């Protein structure tokens, strides 16, 4: 059942304000960052950090790294590649999920609000617990399944068939980096995430269904034929709107639904 408000232990309070600017600062900006410390029993809070943008790079991730390096070393967030391919720094910035490393600070007007991916259990600060969603990913068996005799070399695919995966514009389902921006943007996933697979996992399901080398399409569709796993998608389209890679999970889910009808 949908719960529209936050539980008592999750209500966000006002935190500390840090000012790292000086009289010579020309380019000040305030970042409001969600903080939660599991070692205390305190509720999460929003700390604000006013920093000099001339001391860091242009992206939101650069600002977070600057804050961690120079103001509050306790600030905790995931990051790795800083170029939008690892998916680690997925977070909610300015009310929308995206990758901090791909989000220019000057795209945000006013204070920059940074929170963890929505409707997830928070381990610390901007780090959500993704155990459940990764288990859901495992549940669709994201590997190639075949029954035919294995060829002497790799299983080949025509360029046209590969386009189903890569997309002619490079934005096909195999370009997904599993950052989970989309799933955590989806109100259906917020309310029914225990049973609805959500856009990221369904996009991956589609990636294997549409792979011409995979021979388990029927089995995969059987596994999705369920009121919750697939059919909680109500084309709200937050997934497609929020995807930092410009992919279209909503379209992929619609394609799965169409196949379900076509095979009846």
């Amino acid at each position, binding site marked *: 059942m949908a*719960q*529209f*408000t*936050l*539980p008592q*232990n*999750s209500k*966000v309070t006002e935190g500390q304000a840090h000012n790292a600017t000086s009289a010579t600062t020309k380019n000040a900006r305030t970042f409001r960052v*969600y903080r*939660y410390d*599991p070692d205390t029993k305190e*509720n*999460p809070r929003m700390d604000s950090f006013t920093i000099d943008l001339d001391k860091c790079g242009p992206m939101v991730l650069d600002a977070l790294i600057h804050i961690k390096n120079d103001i509050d070393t306790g600030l905790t967030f995931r990051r790795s590649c800083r170029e939008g391919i690892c998916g680690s720094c997925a977070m*909610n910035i*300015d*009310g*929308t999920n995206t990758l901090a490393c791909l989000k220019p600070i000057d795209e945000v007007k006013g204070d920059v*609000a940074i*929170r*963890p*991916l*929505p*409707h*997830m*259990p*928070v*381990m610390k600060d901007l780090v*959500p*617990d993704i155990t459940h969603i990764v288990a859901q990913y495992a549940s669709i068996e994201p590997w190639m399944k075949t029954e035919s005799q294995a060829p002497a070399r790799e299983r080949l695919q025509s360029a046209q068939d590969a386009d189903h995966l890569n997309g002619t514009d490079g934005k096909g389902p195999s370009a997904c980096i599993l950052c989970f921006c989309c799933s955590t*943007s989806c*109100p259906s996933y*917020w309310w029914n995430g225990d049973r609805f697979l959500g856009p990221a996992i369904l996009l991956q399901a589609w990636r294997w269904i549409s792979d011409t080398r995979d021979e388990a399409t029927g089995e995969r569709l059987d596994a999705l034929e369920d009121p919750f796993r697939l059919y909680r998608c*109500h*084309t*709200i*389209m*937050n997934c*497609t*709107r929020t995807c930092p890679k410009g992919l*279209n999970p*909503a*379209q992929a889910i*619609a*394609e799965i*639904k*169409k196949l379900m009808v076509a095979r009846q």
Partner: protein
Amino acid sequence: MSADPRPLSPHLQIWKWSLTMALSIFHRAANIAVAAGVVVLTWWLAAAATGPAAYDQFIMVLSSPFGKLILFGFLAAVYLHLFTGLRHFLMDMGYLLTIKTADQFGAAILLATAFFTVFTWFFLTGGM
């Protein structure tokens, strides 16, 4: 919910709304409004079957400003639900699934709802 020691991150409270997200919830709200409006129509039929006194009472309530507001809202909900239903039908067929087309069609059905509601209202009431 069990007493999960981990806090739940903010969701609906902080999300930046979009047209497609609003239309999804409008579709449901209009559905509820249409169902409620059907109760009013049932009252109309029941009043007509009961007799002149009951029918006059029904007409009196529905011709008050509040009654007119209810009828106008019902009319708007019928049109909105018709168009958002059509939108869902097209999306299930695989159309309107890019942000651009979804936003354009969404704006179009909001304009269509406003136009048809006002047009029908004036057609039926002569501008009352």
